[in-house]
Structure formats: structure tokens, C-alpha cells
């Protein structure tokens, strides 16, 4: 059974962590998507702090010798999940960078092929919808 003092510290700590995460999301420093794992962890810590027997029962359930090692085990598990999550995100980012790099290359080539604004300016002014388009780009030309 954990002492009352320890319980108060644990509850205060996990509530602070939870509030900190919510605040980060509120300020858009942390995306909602990334907050999921962190919020889940903070809630789990809070649950363990409030419900003192849970850790003991959990340790017993997984057959661990001590409650401390049970805590470390789940802590490590969380870190592994987080790293895996980041690997997935990095792979995703890499995939998107490749697509962008390719599009830039393709656009660059098209840019050379398509007549530039300057070339369009010397061409005949066209009438569209009855309104005169002539001189539309004139301010640009004067520069």
C-alpha cells in the first residue's frame, strides 16, 4: 500500500502532465494526433496514482516480482511504441518529400516549356467576354 504523501505527489504529478499536454495542444505546439499517446500515458499514471491497488494487482497479474519493475516495464513499452510511431511518421514524411521533389522537377521542366508572362505580353491582346483585356498587364511591363 502506498503512503498518502506519495499518492498526493503522484496525483499532482500526473495531473500536471495532463494539463501540460492539453496546454501544448491548445497553443498548437503539439498536434492533436501526436497527443494521443501522451494523454493516454498521463491518464494511466493518474489511474495508478488514484487507485493504489491497481499497480499491485497488475504486477501480480503479469507475474512481476516488484511493482517498480512493472512500472519500468510499461514505461519502456510506451517508449518503444513512441519510437515506432515516429518511425512511421518519418517514413510518411519521406514519401511525401519524394513526391514533392518529383513534382518540383516536373514543374521546372514545364516552366521552361510554357511561355512565360513576358512572352504573353508581346502577343496580341485578346477580347474576352466583351471586355477589353488589352493593357491588363501594362503595369507589369512598365517596371
Amino acid at each position, binding site marked *: 500500500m502506498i503512503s498518502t504523501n506519495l499518492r498526493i505527489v503522484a496525483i499532482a504529478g500526473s495531473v500536471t502532465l495532463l494539463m501540460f499536454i492539453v496546454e501544448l495542444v491548445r497553443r498548437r505546439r503539439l498536434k492533436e494526433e501526436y497527443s494521443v499517446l501522451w494523454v493516454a500515458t498521463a491518464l494511466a499514471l493518474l489511474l495508478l496514482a488514484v487507485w493504489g491497488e491497481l499497480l499491485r494487482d497488475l504486477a501480480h497479474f503479469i507475474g512481476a516480482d516488484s511493482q517498480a519493475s512493472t512500472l519500468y516495464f510499461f514505461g519502456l513499452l510506451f517508449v518503444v511504441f513512441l519510437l515506432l510511431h515516429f518511425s512511421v511518421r518519418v517514413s510518411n514524411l519521406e*514519401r511525401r518529400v*519524394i513526391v514533392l*521533389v*518529383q*513534382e*518540383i*522537377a*516536373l514543374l*521546372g*521542366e514545364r516552366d521552361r516549356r510554357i511561355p512565360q508572362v513576358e512572352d504573353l505580353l508581346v502577343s496580341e491582346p485578346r477580347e474576352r467576354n466583351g471586355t477589353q483585356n488589352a493593357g491588363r498587364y501594362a503595369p507589369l511591363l512598365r517596371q
Partner: protein
Amino acid sequence: MKDLLIIIPAYNEQGRVGRVIEDVHGALPGADVLVVNDGSSDGTAEDAAQAGATVLSLPVNSGYGVALQTGYKFGVRAGYATIGQIDADGQHRAEYLTAMLEALEQHDADLIVGSRFLGEDGHYKPPFARAIGIGLFAHLTSSITHEHISDPTSGFQLMRSRVARLFCSEVYPTDYPDADVLILLHRTGYRVREIPVQMRPSPGKSMHSGHTGPYYVYKMLLSIFVTLLRRGVKVIPQAKLAP
């Protein structure tokens, strides 16, 4: 509909790429040549443009597969019926492109691979470790696809536009396209055929420098394995590819 596009992915091939472009023009006067300059730090792009090729420049060095896929995207969007690829270092001999084009038309195949090992002239002897790797993947690819594949690492290829369209999608492995691509094609229902070609010895460092070593073997085995696990590759419609 345009006819034939030859893609040349090039990374720092100044002084070599121009010759390859001339060879391709010599072998196939009707073909358009596209050089995908993979973020070279030398004058590859200028060389290629001077030799009469269309040049796409990737803003950062992104690797052989990414450069190739950029070429496929260009070719598919421009509506080429047939797309080929040849290395920029002069290892592949452009005169074989005509034979590959004939084979594509004759054999009702979707992709033609130029193989160094077909036809037993034995002109090409890879280093021992590499020979084992190529042999392993040739064997694996052949037994999975039920086609005789002797040179799965060959980047000397010619394909119909529908194959290039598949290569434009996410299923294309942009890190090391290799034996896994041939298996992917087989799974999609496309036919792959090899014809014998001669190659010149590679002039040292090329874009394929990753083609040896334990990581390559690991990556290829994993890639083949997951390609086999994936079912029903969906070919994306042409409309989705247009910008």
C-alpha cells in the same frame, strides 16, 4: 500519342551522359530522350541539354529509384506509348534498344529486360560476392514468376506505358527498384521477358553503388516478401496522374 521516350537517370555524369544521349539518338532517331538529373553537383544537366535531351532536375539528390520514377511520371503524363531506361554511365549499349523494341512488339510482353547473363557468351563476370547476390535473386525471381529471369538487377529496360503507369504509383519501391519490381509486375499480371545484351564494364562509382552489401540483400528479401503479401495491386487511372 507520342511514341517512345528513353529515360536516363543521371547523377554526376558530366562527360559521360552526352555520349549516351548521342548513342540513343543514333540507335533510335525517333525517340525522345529525357535525362533526370538527380541533384548533380557537376554540369550533368547542361551536358544533357546540349546533347539534345529534355532535362528534369531534382532539387536534391534523391536516389536512382526516385529519379527513375520522376521519368515515368513525365512519360505517362506526356502520353508516351513506350518508355525505356538506360544508365547514364555508358554501361548499357544503346544499340540494343532496337532489339528490345522488337522484342516488346513480337513477344506480347509488357517489359523487356536487357540481361548480361542470357546467351552463354560469358562476357560479363561480376565479382564473387555480387555474383552470389545476383544469382540468389535471379533464382528467387524466376521461381516466383515462373519466367526465366537471369539478371534481375539490370536497369536496362523497355516497357509499355501501362507498366510505367503502375510504376508511378505508391507500390513502386523508390529506394532500390530491382528484383522486387519484376515480382510486382508478375503479381499485377504483366509479362516480363529478357533478351541478351552486352554491357561495358561499369566505370567505377555509379548510382547503383548500393547494390552490394548485407543491407541490399535484407532489403530485397523483405521487399519481395511484402510484395508477395500484398494482394490485388490496383492500377490507378490515368486521370489521377495528371497534374
